[in-house]
């Protein structure tokens, strides 16, 4: 079983196709959509978690790339700057998924695999140490 979070970006020609349906039907993948949007130019993105056995998982990713969907791991689109971080820990009381957390030594850390891209941290970080690039 493989599971990872991705940002999928669609061009205007792809946005009306039932791509997620195909991932479920043809590749037997479990899909958990965290966030999605379409802009007025009909371009869109979906942030989702994909999981399935490794053959289907890889097949599904190949399918997405083959039809022209831009696939980026979520960890490449959410960036927490350890240098910018002031280590106050304010974000940790707003992060609903525990992706931003404090160790027992009161050090602030970021585990991007737990991030659900709710963006709560963006507003509460006085150092603006978290950046989201989509």
């Amino acid at each position, binding site marked *: 079983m493989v599971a990872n979070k991705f940002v999928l970006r669609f061009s205007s020609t792809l946005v009306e196709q039932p791509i997620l349906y195909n991932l479920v039907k043809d590749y037997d993948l479990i899909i958990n959509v965290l966030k999605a949007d379409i802009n007025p130019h009909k371009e869109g993105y979906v942030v989702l978690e994909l999981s399935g056995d490794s053959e289907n998982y890889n097949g599904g990713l190949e399918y997405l790339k083959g039809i022209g969907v831009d696939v980026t791991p979520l960890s490449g689109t959410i960036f927490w700057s350890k240098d910018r971080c*002031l*280590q*106050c*820990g*304010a974000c940790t*009381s*707003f992060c609903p998924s525990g992706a931003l957390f404090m160790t027992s*030594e*009161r*050090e602030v850390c970021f585990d991007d695999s737990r991030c659900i891209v709710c963006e709560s941290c963006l*507003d*509460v970080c*006085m*150092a*603006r140490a978290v950046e989201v690039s989509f």
Partner: protein
Amino acid sequence: MAVEKSYAEINEKIKKGTAVVVTAEEIIDIVQEKGMEKTVREVDVVTTGTFGTMCSSGAFLNFGHSKPRIKMNKAYLNGVPAYAGMAAVDVYIGASALPESDPDNRVYPGRFLYGGGHVIEDLVAGKDVKLEAFGYGTDCYPRRHIESLITLDDINDAILFNPRNAYQNYGVAVNASDRTIYTYMGVLKPKLGNASFSTSGQLSPLLNDPYYQTIGVGTRIFLGGGCGYVAWHGTQHNPSVARGENGVPLDGSGTLALIGDLKQMSPQWLRGVSYVGYGVSMAVGIGIPIPILNEEILRYCMVTDADIYSTIADYSTAYPQRDDGELGRVSYAELRSGEINIQGKKVPTTPLSSYIKAREIARILKNWITDGGFLLTEPVQALPSTDAGISLNNLEEKKNNR
């Protein structure tokens, strides 16, 4: 016989490299282990630290004279206005200053991405900063406008002067209303959704010297990564607030005005910050050494987070309306646990100042002293304490027919 040490004796030990220096966190376990009597004889200095937002901060800058000369009466650094109501090329850039073009809270809540604190951080980082200044032209200062780039190295003087820093304790902020509010204590979720708190508790300078017995005018300190001094008591210094049996104030009380050479400082310890819906400010790193002159001073340094209490205030009504009314008191040990209890409700806590950075500052200062390069100074004047009869005045509105 009771131990009494002098500043001179401790400084002799520092020069010889034999002084025993520990942090305000380490001293707690040392006394537990060795007892008071042995510790007061062995330990010479306790170092404290704090790293958090301190709005009453800023820097005096002198740019040098242009050819021809200008008497600046309006000056901007990266678009942020600096106060120019002094001599021709002197300005003061305040940490909370915003560019005139900033949309502030007109689109609520505002983002406040850049301001005076960020200008100071950029200067300290050695970056080019755009200077634009206007004058009205005089016979001696004919020029009316100048645009240039400056760096910290280019300018003659850069003096950090913070009129109010290092608050001795501070209140805990909550929001009892039914909408999210945006404050200088951070984002406060509705219906007591979180409780924000500041200060480094058991590591905080004035919480380890509650009656200002060693920290006074002239005390040499760690300021923004360089060496600075206590210049005076800070604005709103109020030693008269209620105190616990251990002498520790139960709410914001004493404050310090601090001064130091910006050119010695580091962007690691002076950082521009943005509070959504509130404004910009600057996080300042401060470390203050406390000489262990006698047992009483040591006893105050033993304070732990469990002994320090703070008062909870509602920032949706009572605080903004300057009304009385508090929602109880909690200890820093409870605040640091991540959750406190307010009127039977479990409320997650939001720290605003960094405990591990405070610890790092206390350790850096400890190393400076241990290495022999940082001597202690005896205050030339004590700060006003509980016997000074200070009470804060409020601003009352008076009829003005002028």
